[in-house]
């Protein structure tokens, strides 16, 4: 390893561990949550913080060892732009295919026909 100051060492490790833990929990969520729609919640949210922390660690590392490095922020920007959109499309597909949801899901739609492809 290079000669990182100790504070940087600790901080970078902290963010790396935090980030990988969240990425792991997000993947675990895919396994543990009961249905398709619930499973969607895990990767959209937890990967943002997971990747976010790893990005912070990378920015810190390269800023300390080399010169100020911020272009990792672009990854974060794109992630924030794309994660909700892919989640939205997956949820939409799930709805239209009428995938089964766990029995304690409450359907509070007042005008279900507004969200359906079928003509009523």
């Amino acid at each position, binding site marked *: 390893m290079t000669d990182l100051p100790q504070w940087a060492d600790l901080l970078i490790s902290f963010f790396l561990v935090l980030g990988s833990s969240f990425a792991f929990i997000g993947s675990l969520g895919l396994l543990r*949550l009961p249905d398709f729609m619930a499973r969607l919640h895990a990767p959209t949210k937890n990967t943002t913080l997971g990747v976010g922390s790893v990005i912070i660690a990378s920015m810190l590392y390269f800023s300390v060892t080399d010169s100020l490095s*911020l272009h990792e922020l672009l990854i974060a920007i794109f992630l924030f732009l794309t994660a909700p959109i892919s989640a*939205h499309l997956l949820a939409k597909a799930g709805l239209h295919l009428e995938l089964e949801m766990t029995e304690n899901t409450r359907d509070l739609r007042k005008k279900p026909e507004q969200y359906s492809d079928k003509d009523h």
Partner: protein
Amino acid sequence: MSKLIPAPWWSLFLLLFWLLLQNTVSFGVTLLGLILAVIIPLYTMRAREYPTTLHRPLLAVQYFLILLVDIILSNFNIAAIILMPKKRIQPALIEFPLDVTGSVPITILASTISLTPGTISAELARDGRSLLIHALNVQDADATVQQIKQRYERRLKEIFQC
């Protein structure tokens, strides 16, 4: 707005984007970035179907910061739900009546809903007047709707004045 810079915020965003991509701030790189930030909006202006004006830029920054904090909180929230053994979750499909209008504000609101605690926007109603939300764990659906309205939609309405 001037003809040379039809969308100043967009130009600024492009310039920052360019500088981040290059990862340096030198004279040449900045100059090229400035040229691109002027040319690209001019050239693609016609393709912009949904013109929107940012009326309250400072409020937009505040919105972004609130969102950032909420995303971090929501991560812990979801992590707790995932790790809790055999915790009964109460999912629900909720209808969210939209007050904001216009494609851009609705898109931002829908993305915000997906990124914040326990909710995902699943579908925009055919008439564009409401969003369908899937919530992972709610007891009181109306409270969730009110919270989103108070926290995000109210601010978006002010930012875009719609």
